[in-house]
């Protein structure tokens, strides 16, 4: 019966103790600190990476907000430029229209004046001719009894009656 034998007790206890203590020493001084240090370092690294990622996200958000603000600003400026240009163009067109209108008015005025002048000239010519004609006629009719002064007076009267 080899089970539960108690032979070589001293040897068993001694060598088991030695083996166990060596294993315990290696684990205690060597393996456990190394593993725990690595686990801690890994945890720190992961935490650092997460922090860095969070910072990058915040940075990116800041840049995006900046960009959006600039975009809004640019849109506003573009709108202002367009409206200013439109106002200028309108003002210019208005000015043109005014100029043309005043030109037209001036030309019409000139035309009216020249018509009036021509009419006055024509009237003057007609008046002179009629006066001459009246003088000739009166000479023929009155044979010198009527002088030029009387003839003009007669003619004026006649013309006033005719023209009025």
């Amino acid at each position, binding site marked *: *019966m*080899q*089970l*539960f*034998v*108690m*032979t*070589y*007790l*001293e*040897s*068993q*206890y*001694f*060598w*088991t*103790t030695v*083996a*166990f203590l*060596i*294993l*315990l020493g*290696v*684990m*205690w001084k*060597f*393996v*456990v600190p*190394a*593993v725990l*240090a*690595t*686990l801690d*370092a*890994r945890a720190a*690294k992961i935490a650092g990476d997460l922090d860095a990622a969070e910072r990058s996200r915040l940075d990116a958000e800041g840049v995006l907000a900046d960009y959006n603000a600039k975009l809004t600003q640019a849109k506003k400026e573009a709108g202002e430029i367009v409206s200013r240009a439109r106002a200028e163009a309108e003002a210019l067109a208005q000015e043109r229209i005014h100029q043309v209108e005043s030109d037209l008015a001036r030309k019409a005025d000139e035309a009216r004046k020249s018509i009036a002048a021509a009419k006055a000239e024509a009237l003057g010519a007609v008046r002179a001719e009629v006066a001459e004609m009246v003088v000739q006629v009166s000479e023929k009719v009155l044979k010198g009894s009527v002088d030029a002064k009387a003839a003009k007076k007669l003619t004026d009267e006649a013309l006033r009656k005719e023209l009025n």
Partner: protein
Amino acid sequence: MNPLHQFEVAPLFPLMVGGWDLSITNQALWTGIAVAMVIALFSAGVARMRLVPGRLQSFVELTVGFIQDLSGGIVGPKGVAFFPLILTVFLFVSCLNLVGMLPHAFTATSQITTTGYMAVLVFAMVLVVGFATQGLHFLAMFYPHGTPWWLAPLIVPLELISFLARPFTLAIRLTANMVAGHVLLKVFASFCIMLMGWFTVSLAAPFVMLLAITALELFVALLQAYIFTVLTCVYLNDALNGH
């Protein structure tokens, strides 16, 4: 083909030191081989620690993390100081169990001298730690809180007996499992040899059983080491945190 022959302790190098017989027996030799293998494996694993671990480092980290979770879950934060000891208990028992599965190896944990030694070690540690942290209040674990006073004459002796039985149950559970498994392996291996010369096809049944029992024994080797470690943690919890 005595299936118990494998458990025979034999001196390989007789050694007497000052009247003490420190002969290196097969049990001592295989204990040393198993421990050396664990130290080699774990030293290689932690030789160059990287943040992104290789296979060996992962193995070491997972094993250490497994026992860390176990002891943390049972003993709690007070057990941190005892963690290397708990880890060593697990690795010691499991490597002796597993090395015993090698052909021609000697299973040190099949000897009551090894398992009894481990059990007494754990029991003594629990006593020392218990009285050191709780003083005489440690004795209150024999009278569980909330027990009616008239049950005390029954409960206290029962608790005392179950407490004193701890080293025996720890030692015998492990030894009995190892012995039974290895006897079964030897018995079925003997069946294979006996049936081989007689009728070859009939070899299949014991051989399949032998394969299955080998797989089972590998599992039992780790399971018994786990149970031993869990019980160590439970007893340590009693000592550190009270019952």
